[in-house]
């Protein structure tokens, strides 16, 4: 792993939601590292806690019913979880920006696009009036929107999904943040538009030397766009590694199952491999390893049923949380 420099480090993050039906541990001891100018993909299925993790970085968890219950998020030497709200506001949109899945609802329908970008610019930079507007137009041009001067005067409903997503990216990048968090940015888009947007993000990353935290459930998108990958399952990290390693040799049975169950283009028509069962209900997590009921190895193994394996670095820069991951036993004995 190249030492680009650790930009943002999440350590032992815990987020709890208090619902009518009980307490839900949405994120339970998650640790992630985001390197400078690299893309970290956080992969998982619905309900695993990846979006909550992302929102926690910017402290956007609605409180109530949610609460960040523990851990640290170190960014440029400071623990974000301990900053005052006014300091966080300085960081949001400025140093760390976020784009969301649904471009339809993430833009305010009653303001023009130009106005919305200018709002961010005015807030964080010392630009006002004409120069701010020019900067906004420049951002629109940067994200590949043709005729930006006209577009800036249009409203969100006049644009297609792909365009709106570009505008969101423009807004997010207008203050040249060091980290961009992209929460399923292309899930709601057509595949050809998805390709455009992912290419755009890559280009902007190169240009600004920006780090991207990409949250998605699509492993293929991860393969083509990420440098490092963390796989989440049921509020915990199951596996972390560089992208080539994870695809070449996944260590955790969940990752293995996911990769095997993907229909491949050009593959023969065979029965797809399957991970039996479904994602556990966060109110009733299984004991021991949360994946064990669905695991080909773990469902019959008493240790997997009772004791939860922690995330250990079984090889240089390869982390796994599975008793049977190669190198795991040795790592435990080392301790």
């Amino acid at each position: 792993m190249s030492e680009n420099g650790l930009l943002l480090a999440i350590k032992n993050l815990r987020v709890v939601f208090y619902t009518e039906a009980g307490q839900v541990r949405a994120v339970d001891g998650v640790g992630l590292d985001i390197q400078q100018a690299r893309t970290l993909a956080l992969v998982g299925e619905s309900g695993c806690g990846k979006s909550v993790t992302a929102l926690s970085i910017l402290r956007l968890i609605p409180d109530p019913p949610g609460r960040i219950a523990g851990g640290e998020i170190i960014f440029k030497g400071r623990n974000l979880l301990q900053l005052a709200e006014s300091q966080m506001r300085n960081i949001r949109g400025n140093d760390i920006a976020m784009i969301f899945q649904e471009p339809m609802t993430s833009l305010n329908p009653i303001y023009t696009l130009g106005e919305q970008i200018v709002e961010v610019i005015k807030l964080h930079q010392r630009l006002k009036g004409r120069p701010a507007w020019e900067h906004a137009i420049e951002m629109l041009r940067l994200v590949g929107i043709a005729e930006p001067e006209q577009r800036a005067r249009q409203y969100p409903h006049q644009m297609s999904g792909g365009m709106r997503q570009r505008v969101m990216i423009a807004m997010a990048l207008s203050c040249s943040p060091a980290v961009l968090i992209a929460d399923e940015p292309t899930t709601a888009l057509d595949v050809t538009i998805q390709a455009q947007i992912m290419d755009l993000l890559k280009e902007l990353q190169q240009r600004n030397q920006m780090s991207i935290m990409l949250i998605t459930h699509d492993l293929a998108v991860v393969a083509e766009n990420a440098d490092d990958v963390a796989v989440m399952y049921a509020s915990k990290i199951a596996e972390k590694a560089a992208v080539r390693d994870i695809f070449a040799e996944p260590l955790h049975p969940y990752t293995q199952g996911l990769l095997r169950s993907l229909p491949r283009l050009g593959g023969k028509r065979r029965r797809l491999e399957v991970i039996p069962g479904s994602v556990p209900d966060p109110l009733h997590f299984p004991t021991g390893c949360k994946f064990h009921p669905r695991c080909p190895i773990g469902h019959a193994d008493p240790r997997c049923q009772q004791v939860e394996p922690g995330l250990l670095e079984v090889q240089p820069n390869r982390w796994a949380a599975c008793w049977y991951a190669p190198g795991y036993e040795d790592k435990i004995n080392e301790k």
Partner: protein
Amino acid sequence: MTERLQKAKKPRHSENYWLNVWSRVRRNRRGFTGLCFVGFMLLVALFSPLLATNQPIVCKYQGKWYFPAVVELFQSRGTGPHWINKSPPFNLPQFDAKHQLDPQAFAIWPLIPYSEYEQTANFLSPPNRWHWLGTDELGRDLAARMIHGTVVSVKVGFVSMGIAALIGIAVGALAGYWGGWVDIIISRIIEIVICFPVFFLILAIMVWLEPNIINVMIVIGLTRWTSIARYARGEFIRIKGQDYVIAARALGIGHLRIMFRHILPNSLAPVMVSITFGIASAILLEAGLSWLGFGVQPPSPSWGNILRTAYDSLGVAAYMVYPPCVAIFLAVLSYNLVGDALRDAIDPRLRKAA
């Protein structure tokens, strides 16, 4: 199928949507209080002949057992076999049980041992030991009249809104489901009816009709259906486009069944809220009509006309104003609270779960 079957998880109590709503309403304190008062009113109305009448509930007279008030309960509710009649001498109107019964004989009297029509000698007397709320200008016990007035309010509330609901849901369903010309015409009709100032329309109609409780209920019902119709229409339009309705059509299920079995149960939530608020306003409307003299006529008691008498005798009998005012206020307030709680309980959190 070689995959393992989805095993049944911990057997969770299968939750009906309305049970869910009910538990949410219960948890809302204001709503629950309102609901308690509504329940209280319903009980008072239901058992009014046992609570306020001039004959005992059970007594022993000249060696035999009699249950005059209980019989009266059945007779007034219209239920029970017709051959249950009050045995003599209790069935004679001039038989005054209070005086005729042997003081030594066993008798259980109702809470208020006066009937709502019974006139006594101490008229316009303020609350005292015998008449807990006082008496009116004809010596009738105020508490008894208030209790029997509850019946009017409850009846008017539910029956008139029942009529309104039937009309409103039917109209709204047709407009929402069929769309097109049917919708255009019905919507214009709804808009026209809404434009009428309801209270004055009702007054105008009551001038023509004989003022009694049945006509009041019908008239209120016939004028209050519009907001229900609008909600129903909106819900039908929304639900009509849902996948499960399209699935039903694809399965060859007929229109009527789709409307009643699929769309209607899912559309009731906002309609229920509207009905609850409608009951509150119906009670208020009836009180107003009776106060003006167009509703329930004396000697039949209604909170409205009790208030009228109080108003007329304000100088001498100020104590009479309070009971009906408080009763009307509490009734309307509690229905509104229930409506509020219901509205909170159905939207939109439950939309996600359901």
